[in-house]
């Protein structure tokens, strides 16, 4: 930027146009830089993102491989120098080591040899000190000097050699240094070369990758665009179709909606009115309910009060009842005791009463006996009474008839005919004309035959037909059952032959025959007695009533009417007569009074007020006359 500024127009320039151009340039440059940056970023991103794409991926892989190869090659090239230096160094070290070893050996040898020589010299020193002749001493010293010189020479030689070696190694060091600087230079050079080549190839690869990505993108774009177009068209068609469909549907739905709306509105109104009325009704009901509720509440409150009161009372009464119960229990206990006493007592009484009963039974039997006796007596007395009454009645009849005749003849002046009176001839109580004493056999036959047999036993019936069956009819069923029971129970009395013979007969006949045989065999007293009871016949009073009635009806109805009418007329006549007699008495009395009054008048005429009195008298007279009349 600064370079640009310095080269082109400057923003610091005094010329505004120049400044403007400078700024424009700067903006352009910035934009370009930004664009480049973005592009780079884009390409990088693309490389990252679209790695999955096929061609680009292969391209990337290829590039990567190529770059790696390039890099390794370059690195190898650079490190080759290092390796070579290493190799050289190691060689040098080996050589150094070897040289050192040799040197050390040489030094040791030298030291050894020089030591030997030195020892020789020192040995000679002792020899030399021993020598007394100056000549010898000189020789010895000379030789010593020679030896020392030799030693020193050797040493010097060695030193020289070492110094030469040192110099050589110095030279080598310098050479090595030079070589190393060369190496370093070469290395730097190669590094730079590698960097540049790498940069170049990176750029190339980047271009390639970008191109491949671009191609891929283009193809993808084209494909997508095509697909897009196609789908868009399809979508347009479909949308049109749907639109039409939708419009149709909308119309249909509108119609439907309208109809539904109307219907619903009607329905709604209906429901609304209904509901409103319902609401009103319910409100009324609610009010009513409220009222009733209040009422009920009051009532209930009242009830509660009452019930509380009741409850209190109940509590009181309960306590009372409890007390009472306790008392009652006491009473109960007392009563139980009493009851036990009573039971004992009653037991005793019972005993007493049974004794009494027995006595009573005895008495009863006696009474029966007496009754029978009295019955007989009564019957006799009855006959006697009957006869007496009959005689009396007959006398009364005769008298009545006599009176009737008198009435007819005297009062009415009619001829009287005595009515026929058959009963007058008879005397004594009316006797039923059958035999009172029937045999039990006969009774049985009668009973059995009375159950619907027609004419089987006319012979036995002849006697009993008159009186009819009504006397025994009451007991017919029981009697029959009794008899049947009897013949079943007392079957042992019947002979087996008879039974065989009887088997062919009818059921009633069978039983009859059986009874017959049984009666003939047993003639048991009990049975007899039984039937005697049955046969014991009450006196029949129906005839008596008729008898007495006929006697009473001697005077007929018509005659009685005549009598009544006659009586009435006679009574009237009697009354008239009694009145006449009374009037006669009255007139007599009046006549007496009149005479008295006349006497008085005569007295009063003397006095002045006879007129007033007269009036009174007249009135009395008039009154009396009226009564008379």
């Amino acid at each position, binding site marked *: 930027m*600064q370079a640009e500024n310095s080269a082109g127009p400057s*923003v610091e320039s005094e010329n505004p146009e120049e400044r403007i151009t400078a*700024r424009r340039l700067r903006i352009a440059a910035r934009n370009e830089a930004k664009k480049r940056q973005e592009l780079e970023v884009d390409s990088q991103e693309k490389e990252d993102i679209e*790695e999955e794409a096929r061609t680009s991926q292969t391209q990337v892989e290829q590039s*990567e*491989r190529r770059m790696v190869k390039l890099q390794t090659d370059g690195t190898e090239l650079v490190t080759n120098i290092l*390796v070579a230096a290493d190799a050289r*160094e*190691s060689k040098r070290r080996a050589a150094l080591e070897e040289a050192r070893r040799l040197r050390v050996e040489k030094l040791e040898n030298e030291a050894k040899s020089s030591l030997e020589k030195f020892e020789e010299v020192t040995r000679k020193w002792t020899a030399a000190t021993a020598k007394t002749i100056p000549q010898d001493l000189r020789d010895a010293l000379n030789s010593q000097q020679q030896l020392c010189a030799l030693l020193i020479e050797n040493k010097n030689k060695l030193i020289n050699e070492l110094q030469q070696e040192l110099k050589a190694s110095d030279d080598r060091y310098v050479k090595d240094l030079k070589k190393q600087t060369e190496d370093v230079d070469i290395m730097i050079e190669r590094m730079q070369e590698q960097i540049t080549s790498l940069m170049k190839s990176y750029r190339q690869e980047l271009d390639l990758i970008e191109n491949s990505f671009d191609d891929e993108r283009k193809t993808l774009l084209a494909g997508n665009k095509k697909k897009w177009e196609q789908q868009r068209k399809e979508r347009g068609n479909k949308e049109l179709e749907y639109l039409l469909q939708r419009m149709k549907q909308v119309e249909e739905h509108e119609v439907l909606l309208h109809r539904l709306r109307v219907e619903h509105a009607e329905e709604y109104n209906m429901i609304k009115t209904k509901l409103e009325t319902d609401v009103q009704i319910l409100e009324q009901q609610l009010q009513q309910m409220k009222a009733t509720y209040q009422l009920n509440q009051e009532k209930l409150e009242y009830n509660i009060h009452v019930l509380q009161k009741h409850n209190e009372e109940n509590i009181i009464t309960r306590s009372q009842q409890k007390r009472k119960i306790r008392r009652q229990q006491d009473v109960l206990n007392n009563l139980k005791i009493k009851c036990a006493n009573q039971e004992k007592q009653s037991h005793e009484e019972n005993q007493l009463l049974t004794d009494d009963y027995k006595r009573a039974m005895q008495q009863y039997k006696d009474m029966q006996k007496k009754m029978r006796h009295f019955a007989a007596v009564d019957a006799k007395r009855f006959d006697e009474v009957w006869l007496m009454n009959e005689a009396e009645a007959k006398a009364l009849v005769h008298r009545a008839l006599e009176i009737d005749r008198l009435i007819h003849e005297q009062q009415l002046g009619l001829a009287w005919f005595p009515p026929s009176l058959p009963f007058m001839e008879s005397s004594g109580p009316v006797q039923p004309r059958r035999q009172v004493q029937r045999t039990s056999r006969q009774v049985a036959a009668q009973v059995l035959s009375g159950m619907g047999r027609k004419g089987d036993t006319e012979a036995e019936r002849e006697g009993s037909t008159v009186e009819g069956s009504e006397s025994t009819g009451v007991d017919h069923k029981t009697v029959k059952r009794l008899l049947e029971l009897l013949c079943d129970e007392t079957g042992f009395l019947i002979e087996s032959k008879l039974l065989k013979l009887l088997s062919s007969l009818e059921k009633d006949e069978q039983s009859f025959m059986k009874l017959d045989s049984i009666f003939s065999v047993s003639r048991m007293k009990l049975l007899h007695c039984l039937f005697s009871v049955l046969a014991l016949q009450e006196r029949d009073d129906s005839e008596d009533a008729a008898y007495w009635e006929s006697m009473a009806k001697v005077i007929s109805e018509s005659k009685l009417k005549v009598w009544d009418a006659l009586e009435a007329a006679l009574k009237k006549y009697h009354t008239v007569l009694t009145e006449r007699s009374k009037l006669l008495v009255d007139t007599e009395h009046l006549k007496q009074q009149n005479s008295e009054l006349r006497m008085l008048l005569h007295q009063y005429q003397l006095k002045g007020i006879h007129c007033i009195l007269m009036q009174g008298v007249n009135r009395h007279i008039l009154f009396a006359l009226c009564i008379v009349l």
Partner: protein
Amino acid sequence: MAAATMFKGNAPAGIYPPIAKLNPAADPRRMRRIIAEDPEWSLAVVPLLTNLCLQHIVKHFEERPILDELVPDQKAFVLEKLPPSLPLSVTANLISDEGYWKRCCEGRWGVSDVSEYSHSWKRMFFERHLENIIELFIPDVTDPRAVLDVVPLCQNYVRRLKISQLLPPIKEPPKFDEDDASDSASDVGNDRPSMDHFDFRILLDKLTNLEELQLVYGVKGCGMNFEWNLFEFTFRDCEFLAKALKSCKSLKVLRINQSKVDDEKCRKLLSYLLDHPSLLELDLSHNLIGDRGARAIGKLLNRSRLERLDIYDNQIRGSGAQALAHALSKNTSLLYLNLRLNRLGDEGGQAVAQALLKNGTLRNLNLGANELTEPTATAMSHALVQNSTLRSLNLSCNRLGVDGGKVLEEGMSHNSSLLECDIRLTDVGLESEYCIGKVLRTNQAKVRRKRTQAVAASR
């Protein structure tokens, strides 16, 4: 927005031309109504009171640093105006604005790459500041307080120290010759003035965030003033450093390069590093470690969480390698091992290859330039058949020979995990090289495919 940010970059150069400030009447800008490039430009003749206040704050920032109380845009204004020359004691813990620290860095070291400092200019500034102080520290001359004063200011920001030189004391022991100096330095120390360097004990336990430490006990760029004693790592140095390292619990990476660390010092150093809670990476390359040192390293391997170990360019031989291999066979944390430029020989190479049979974590192994020959190739091919975790193997610069190459090729044909195998300069023959390369390429392709699939799946 883009325009504004772009503009800000060149604003200081363009807007305040020094001449214009000197002579406002002559400034043509005064004649203009609008200057689009200057957001602070206004027609008002009298500057705003706030601006005046802010300028005052800037001017007297050293006496009264007012920053946190300001509203954001005022704060930005002040920060932009603050000169980088302010004392660190004021700014260090007060200003966190990157722009200010960027200016500081650029003012001091020119153009720099901030990406190495996790894009933090402030970190860069303090790390480099501290490095400078330590690199220029001369024992017994420089006051240790010069370092200690900086510590409280920078301890929160320093994560890495890359110290490329440590100066020895100035006093020269004139009585010694050059040859004797190297010998006497290690065994003499108490009776005479020491050659000890900067004592890290005073520093390391205070840097609570320090994670990476890189040291070179030597002088950088001495030129023709070379003397052996400039490159002396004394025993006391070693002890002090070891103790300091032990006190620094957050350290993850330790690099001590080109410092003449021999067996004794290595053992001393590592004995203090045993069971270090956080150390993950150890780099002792370009030193003089021998077999005993290697044994100490082997011991450390299984008493730490080391993941990366660089001991290339040392003098480890067969027995040391055996000790390392023994440790390796039991180790479960180490991922990277570099033994380049040592002297393992077949003895050590075979031991390492056999350790690979048991190890299941190591991913990178470098055995370049180790005088290995065919037996090692055989053992390595066995290991390759069984091992399935190793990803990279470097056997370059070893005389494996054609037969060794064939054996290796045989082993490689059964391997499906190795991705890199460097067999340059091993005389293995073109055919084997080609075959091995082929297997490597198939393995790489497989891994690539898996990776792409994983990426696709994650999407």
